[in-house]
């Protein structure tokens, strides 16, 4: 008889609920294949709400932060990241329901369980205390997203799915090699255990540095930092737009959540060694993302390059390697998730029936044709550009401040210059919408209320966080303390 470990499942209740909701929607699809999407949506949203509730209940949890035989870290960073991811998933599901209603595609009942399972993986990865769990969660979310990317009958989607899969699996292999090296260097795969082992060692950390390098490559792919960004534009463009919205926003939060743990806990003793690496990745991402975005004529592609640049800004915050930097990065991630979700949502509504009209030209005169959509898009564009009074501005100030206080003023300078260049293509969209006449003949417009209601969430948050950032900063102050 095995001695049973102490079982405290409460800290993984959000994951259990999410996986449970995924299985329920899956069974529902199998047992009632003719049921409407509304029921699926309702079931999924109830699951997401319950999971969010369970996460928030963990905020005031006391006691040992590492539970379930060292697999899960029950701290406030996990709570905050989970709530963001779950909110993004809820909006993504609303957008997706509308998309598949409109695109004339066959029913896609599997959309709901797959999004829920992807969400499970994402919330699990931000709470993982063991690199084995990080790896498994990474695979759960990646495998779900590969399939979601291909969930459209357009040839482009299949192609995007395959590129995403091949490069994702390639990146996973690098990540694993890094984990194996970390295990060899320290004798453990526990995130905190690695830190203790590295802090105890003196000299001869060559193997740990090799590990760090490979882990950086693996995470670089997942957060799409330059030079590991090649897949991003193709996948974001090829995937169905609501899936793009979901994965662009949520995957980045999840991957950065895990990266924060790995860098600021496991490899904290080697902070001086990884700082230049992250510095370089941040600078390259910011510059390359901003420059290449200018040349794009497709809005989804432009937003994909912009997401690369934003990954660089989050990394800029992380170069501080302290609580200050983690807080700035978390704020940036929240702002980024909201404005990305919102802008892809608007893109989905502008391109009726699937993926028509995603070129920049189709935005000319949008201010006259669809004032509400144009207003939302303008708000998100201003926020992405980092212009006050939006969340994007506060977020940029935060990460630059953290980098400067840590002595990386050159990086902040690179960031500021790139932001100015980037403002050009964000503002170009605004100019097109308001200063130009609509082109072409009158086209069918999408005027359904449900997705607009869903987009109100990111829009309101983008504004409120821009005007009253203190509301969130207090929470993030507590969340950025990593207990281990």
């Amino acid at each position, binding site marked *: 008889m*095995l*001695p*049973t*470990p102490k079982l405290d499942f409460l800290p*993984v209740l959000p994951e259990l609920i999410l*996986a449970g909701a*995924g*299985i329920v929607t*899956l069974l529902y699809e199998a047992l009632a294949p003719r049921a409407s999407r509304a029921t699926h949506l309702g079931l999924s949203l109830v699951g997401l709400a319950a999971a969010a509730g369970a996460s928030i209940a963990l905020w005031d949890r006391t006691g040992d932060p590492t539970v*379930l*035989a*060292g*697999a*899960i870290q029950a701290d406030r960073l996990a709570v905050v990241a989970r709530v963001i991811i779950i909110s993004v998933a809820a909006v993504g599901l609303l957008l997706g329901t509308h998309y598949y209603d409109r695109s004339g595609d*066959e029913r896609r009942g*599997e959309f709901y*369980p*797959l999004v829920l*399972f992807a969400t*499970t*993986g994402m919330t*699990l990865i931000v709470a993982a205390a*063991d690199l*084995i*769990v990080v790896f*498994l*969660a990474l*695979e*759960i979310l990646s*495998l*779900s997203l*590969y*399939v979601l990317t*291909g*969930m459209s*009958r357009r*040839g482009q989607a299949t192609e995007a799915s395959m590129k995403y899969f091949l490069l994702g699996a390639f990146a996973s292999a690098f990540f694993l090699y890094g984990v194996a090296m970390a295990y*060899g*260097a*320290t*004798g453990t795969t526990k995130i905190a255990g690695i830190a203790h*082992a590295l802090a105890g*060692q003196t000299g*001869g*950390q*060559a*193997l*740990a*540095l*090799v590990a760090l390098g490979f882990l950086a490559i693996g995470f670089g792919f997942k957060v799409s930092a330059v030079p590991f960004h090649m897949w991003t534009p193709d996948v974001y463009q090829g995937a169905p737009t609501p899936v793009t919205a979901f994965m662009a926003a949520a995957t980045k939060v999840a991957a950065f959540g895990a990266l924060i743990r790995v860098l600021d806990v496991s490899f904290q003793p080697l902070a001086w060694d990884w700082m230049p690496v992250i510095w370089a990745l941040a600078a390259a991402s910011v510059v390359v993302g901003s420059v290449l975005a200018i040349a794009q004529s497709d809005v989804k592609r432009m937003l994909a390059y912009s997401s690369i640049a934003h990954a660089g800004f989050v990394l800029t915050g992380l170069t501080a390697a302290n609580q200050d930097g983690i807080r700035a990065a978390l704020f940036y991630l929240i702002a980024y998730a909201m404005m990305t979700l919102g802008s892809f949502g608007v893109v989905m509504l502008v391109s009726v029936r699937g993926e028509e009209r995603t070129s920049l030209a189709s935005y000319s005169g949008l201010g006259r044709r669809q004032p509400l959509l144009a207003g939302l898009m303008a708000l998100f564009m201003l926020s992405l550009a980092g212009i006050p009074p939006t969340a994007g501005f506060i977020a940029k100030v935060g990460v630059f401040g953290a980098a400067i206080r840590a002595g990386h003023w050159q990086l902040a300078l690179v960031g500021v210059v790139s932001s100015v260049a980037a403002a050009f293509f964000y503002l170009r969209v605004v100019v097109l919408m308001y200063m130009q006449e609509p082109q072409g003949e009158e086209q069918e417009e999408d005027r359904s209320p449900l997705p607009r209601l869903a987009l109100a969430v990111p829009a309101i948050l983008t504004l409120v966080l821009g005007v009253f950032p203190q509301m969130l900063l207090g929470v993030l102050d507590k969340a950025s303390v990593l207990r281990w």
Partner: protein
Amino acid sequence: MPLDNVVFWVFAPIAVASAIAMLVQRNAVHAALLLIVNFFCIAVFYLLLGAPFLFAVQVIVYAGAIMVLFLFVIMLLGVDRGDTLRERLVGQRPAAIGLGLALALEVFFAVRAGVGFAAKAPVGFEKVNAGGNAQALARVLFRDYFFPFEATSVLLIVAAIAAMVLAQRKARAITQAGAEAAGRGEVA
């Protein structure tokens, strides 16, 4: 020279050679067979390294199930579908060989530089594997790693749904492919 090392020096060159042969093999079926040879050699190493359970898993799951799946798909898509070996980037092959050797050397020196685990008091693998490797693995897996084990179940559900979703739209996908091909023809 102890037996372990003899076995290693017999199988390591075979493994590396089969891996490299796979890379330059034009025929997909032959490449798959070479990969199976490689996986068998790796299974032998697991035996040498005190992991007989993984030896069995490697042979059954990898060399057995996974590679059969590969061969099945290769057959399904047409055996004659060769692959050109022309380089996409100039000088890619020498650069790759150089980098590969550099990686091997880097690891070698990293290990030689001493990484600290030599200082730890080794318990002796026999003690760790007390009662048999499979039993010892089970003890660790179901006690210390039971949560990751449960997480794997979600992964497998996702894989099952995925295969279903991707494969189910057979009839529709084929007509769709025909329509798209026709559409491309017009444009071209």
